[in-house]
């Protein structure tokens, strides 16, 4: 493999086009190689990064460039040839800028896949063509569905090792379609690739003439990403009260987590239940006529209401539930303790942190069959449905309606570790 030598300038993406995607694949499915290939063939690696790859390769006695080394940034990762934690990569083409959340495949790092998927517009699930769907690929599809990642790519890798056989690709695609029919995945695109050889990653390959779709990068560049966060009902969790007494200023700052707000809009304050009017939507660059998710703003209100961090301003005709009893899907991320009825935790939800008690474990999901099985507890990497009782209400929507007001973190009060991801299904 040679270094890019021509003087071609890199082009920059239009300012309004940013795609965040997460990659998931089991160990040895070639995920790091895929990302390395994507960066290399789109000319996103610069000369010193390539030199570093060659240097590391020589130290290890390898021939040629090991593209996986682009992403494995930690010493232990390079030594063991595995990916330990989520890494974020940045590149852009003339069409779009990209943020890659590169998440590890080991089952023990499932929590990192959840981390990467929570903010992703799209997830790539990588499958080794020789092995077909494994438990890990099913788990990754389930997690992408559970976290409501709006788009999914099934990348069938190592096609060069199955003679670029259309039948192999078709069988895996069909099996995946059967499996995901029960998941709520809105859009799945399957692409046959060879990350090692570069087939259909950036450039379309003539080794698979039966495949007529786009290369992976072409798909990433073109896939439609609408601003779906701004479509829902207005939600502004109050994060910080800004006071400047000498200017008689009192504003409620936060990141809009759903819908939009404009000057003069009527809003409801929770927990008080009082209605008031927005007199200004402020930013340091001037007042806005309208602001929408995910903008960070500060609003002023017409009436003097006691508003503080943890409160919520929302659309008066479509308020969220003020709930102290939740039913939620949980991805449990700790080996110790396990989650069981009676476990006491903290729930961080929007800008509010409350004490929570696990009242029930309803079931555990077998991620390979999607069957719900009765369970008394959830262990590391288990996904299940639980009941939670809260010491104070949270103002929440079902996760399927709003990823920000429907999601939460579970935190261990004693160790302060983040031990669970919560996706609310029902609130009372």
């Amino acid at each position: 493999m040679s270094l890019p030598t021509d003087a071609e300038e890199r082009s920059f993406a239009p300012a309004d086009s940013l795609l965040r995607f997460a990659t998931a694949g089991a160990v040895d499915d070639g995920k790091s190689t895929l990302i390395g290939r994507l960066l290399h063939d789109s000319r996103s690696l610069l000369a010193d990064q390539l030199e570093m790859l060659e240097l590391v390769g020589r130290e290890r006695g390898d021939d040629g460039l090991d593209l996986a080394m682009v992403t494995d940034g930690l010493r232990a990762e390079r030594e063991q040839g595995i990916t330990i934690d989520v890494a974020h990569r940045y590149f852009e083409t003339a069409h779009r800028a990209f943020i890659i959340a590169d998440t590890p495949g080991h089952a023990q790092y499932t929590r990192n896949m959840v981390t990467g998927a929570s903010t992703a517009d799209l997830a790539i699930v990588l499958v080794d063509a020789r092995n077909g769907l494994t438990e890990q690929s099913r788990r990754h599809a389930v997690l992408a569905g559970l976290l409501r990642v709006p788009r999914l790519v099934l990348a069938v890798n190592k096609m060069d090792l199955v003679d670029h056989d259309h039948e192999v690709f078709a069988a895996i695609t069909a099996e995946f379609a059967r499996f995901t029919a029960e998941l709520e995945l809105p859009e799945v695109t399957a692409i046959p690739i060879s990350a090692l050889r570069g087939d259909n990653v950036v450039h379309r390959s003539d080794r698979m003439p039966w495949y007529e779709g786009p290369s992976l990068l072409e798909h990433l560049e073109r896939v439609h990403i609408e601003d779906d966060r701004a479509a829902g009902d207005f939600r502004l969790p109050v994060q910080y009260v800004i006071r400047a007494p000498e200017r008689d200023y009192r504003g409620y700052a936060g990141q809009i987590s759903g819908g939009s707000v404009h000057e003069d809009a009527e809003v409801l304050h929770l927990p008080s239940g009082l209605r008031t009017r927005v007199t200004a939507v402020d930013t340091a660059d001037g007042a806005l006529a309208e602001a929408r998710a995910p903008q960070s703003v500060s609003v002023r209100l017409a009436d003097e209401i006691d508003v503080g961090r943890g409160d919520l301003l929302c659309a008066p005709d479509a308020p969220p539930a003020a709930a102290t009893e939740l039913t939620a899907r949980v991805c449990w991320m700790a080996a110790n303790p396990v989650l069981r009825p009676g476990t006491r935790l903290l729930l961080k939800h929007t800008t509010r942190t409350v004490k929570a008690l696990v009242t029930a474990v309803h079931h555990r999901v077998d991620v390979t069959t999607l069957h719900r099985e009765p369970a008394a507890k959830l262990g590391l990497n288990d996904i299940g449905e639980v009941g939670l009782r809260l010491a104070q209400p949270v103002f929440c929507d079902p996760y399927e309606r709003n990823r920000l007001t429907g999601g939460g973190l579970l935190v261990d009060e004693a160790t302060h570790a983040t031990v669970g991801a919560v996706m609310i299904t029902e609130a009372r």
Partner: protein
Amino acid sequence: MPARRALSRLDVLESEALHLIREVAAEFDRPALLFSGGKDSAVLLRLAEKAFWPAPIPFPVLHVDTGHNFEEVLEFRDRRAAELGVRLVVASVQDSIDAGRVVEQEGRGASRNRAQTVTLLDAIAEHRFDSLFGGARRDEERARAKERMLSFRDAFGQWDPRNQRPELWNLYNGLIGPGENVRAFPLSNWTERDIWTYVDQDGVELPALYFAHRRKVFERDGMYLADNPFVHRDPDEVLTEKSVRFRTIGDMTCTGAVPSTASTVAEVIAEIAATKVTERGQTRADDRASAASMEDRKREGYF
């Protein structure tokens, strides 16, 4: 009302950064913002100004001064802090050396970069800071690519990349125990070009070193180091005057200049578009020590 336009990626990145800055200010008792006078920390300071506008920034800024800084940068640091009315805390590596907490490296390639960690951790203890904002970007370096936006550090200031807190949606777990602290990185998702585009669009002032100027330099390992009293220069390392600018600004002993004629922000952006080398690869001698230099420094408590 103006027609709805798509939010630009800088709008989105700015909103994400303001959110993190406000979260830390709301949840921690004693935050501080690491301000070196470099371009990333100048943007970070601007974002902090915006997060609390029209109120002043509710925390001090902290500079870990290696004693080997460019005069222009120190002048810029002092002036910006005064203009914003924020308290400037300077922690001095020289003081740490004088107190015997740090042993000065000697010889070719000596730098005070590693020593900064001791001074930083001492400053955290002295001022009881529980949270520090840093201008680090994940695109800079591959160990930084592994960082969380809100990064937990134990009572010894150590970063454990195997045991980071999962970070989901826009939720940050800021609970810590006594002696522990967090580093907050609002610019995590910004690239070098995002920084420069923001500097352009927002009129962020930067030290003049970032733009082309004539300076006496000598060449070492493919980099131009500025003539300065702190670096050990070999007899065959000859000074020449060149038109250069700095892509990153840090300790004078390990920050290289690049040949450039870019004297405006727009010209700098055009130059970045054409470059074949990353920012740190081109200008940071300290990252070249080994494939894991940054990781090793971060584990010890470097930001």
